[in-house]
């Protein structure tokens, strides 16, 4: 697990190396989700990530939104992730909740 301090230290370090990064932060959750509001993940332009917004559950969506915001739009955005797939869904996100994630290119 990365603490808030470790996340912000890592952000400073990456920016000092002039690496384009994006910060994803869970801002709201409803129902069952793996992580609560405030959980953060750093996504680097090469796809490397630090921290977590909930493991497999929805992290791929966060990753692609992060790359879009860093490389294409250069603007922050909010994405909604639905983890309410039916139990039978193959590889489904079945935690049962929904989350909103703020994505900001830094």
């Amino acid at each position, binding site marked *: 697990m990365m603490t808030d301090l470790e996340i912000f230290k890592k952000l*400073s370090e990456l920016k000092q190396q002039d690496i384009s990064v994006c910060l994803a932060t869970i801002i709201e959750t409803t129902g069952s989700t793996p992580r609560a509001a405030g959980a953060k993940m750093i996504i680097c332009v090469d796809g490397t990530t630090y921290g977590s917004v909930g493991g497999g559950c929805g992290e791929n969506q966060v990753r692609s939104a992060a790359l879009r915001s860093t490389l294409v739009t250069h603007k922050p955005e909010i994405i909604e992730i639905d983890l309410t797939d039916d139990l039978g869904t193959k590889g489904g996100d079945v935690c049962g909740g929904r989350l909103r994630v703020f994505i900001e290119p830094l």
Partner: protein
Amino acid sequence: MKEKIFFGGLMGMHARIVELLEKEESFCLATILGSNRPDIRPGQKAIVHHNGSIEGSLGSSQLDASLGRLGQKALKENKSTVVEMDSGLSVFLNVLSADAQLIICGAGHIAIPLSQFSQQLGFQVTVIDDRSDFANPSRFPDCEIIAEDFAVALRKYPFSPATYVVVITRGHEHDVDCLIEILKRKTVYVGLIGSRRRVRIVLDMLVEKGLSQSRLKDVFTPIGLPIGAESPEEIALSIVSELICVRRKGPAQARALRKAVGIE
């Protein structure tokens, strides 16, 4: 103007957040999510302190005052949340907390799994013991190690804004020495291991030395959540479970779990 410099670069902002996380127990990082004002843009940030003061003005004393109040409320409830404000502002209030520091007094067999588990869970771990063959890097890789008399080491050790202390020394006299020093300081959590008899002896000795009953009530003893732990690893797990409970839910919840099985 300080604010302008502050907003001048996110690098400055990150450095400031790191600096605050190293000295404050908690503060609130406000991030603008949406705005109807052209001068306030999504992604813009401000910091709100416990006293309601703000770093990084929104450019309006009315908005600042209202952000200060909302930030204080989030800090008080220790809950990160989204709020709506005037001018169509939508703001994420993120309560940021200092890293939890764990001081383990006593480098015996429980200290090894305890240091490993707690490090994985995000604690910065320091191990103190007066025996240098126990307080030794070979036993505690990646921990800060102090091989010195317990009282001397604790007296000069800088406690962080969020310090947890676990007392698991090899003898009740050492427990007493440690607790005298620890209870003078501000801590989030203090736990003491021992059988009921040993714990009673230690607490009685501390009362004799003039410590107040009310301060001694803050000590979690016997230590750990009641999961029936027996082996050193299991006991370490029960202790870290209690640390997590205090960190995430507060000491009242950890007390309630103990009370549920008759530990007062």
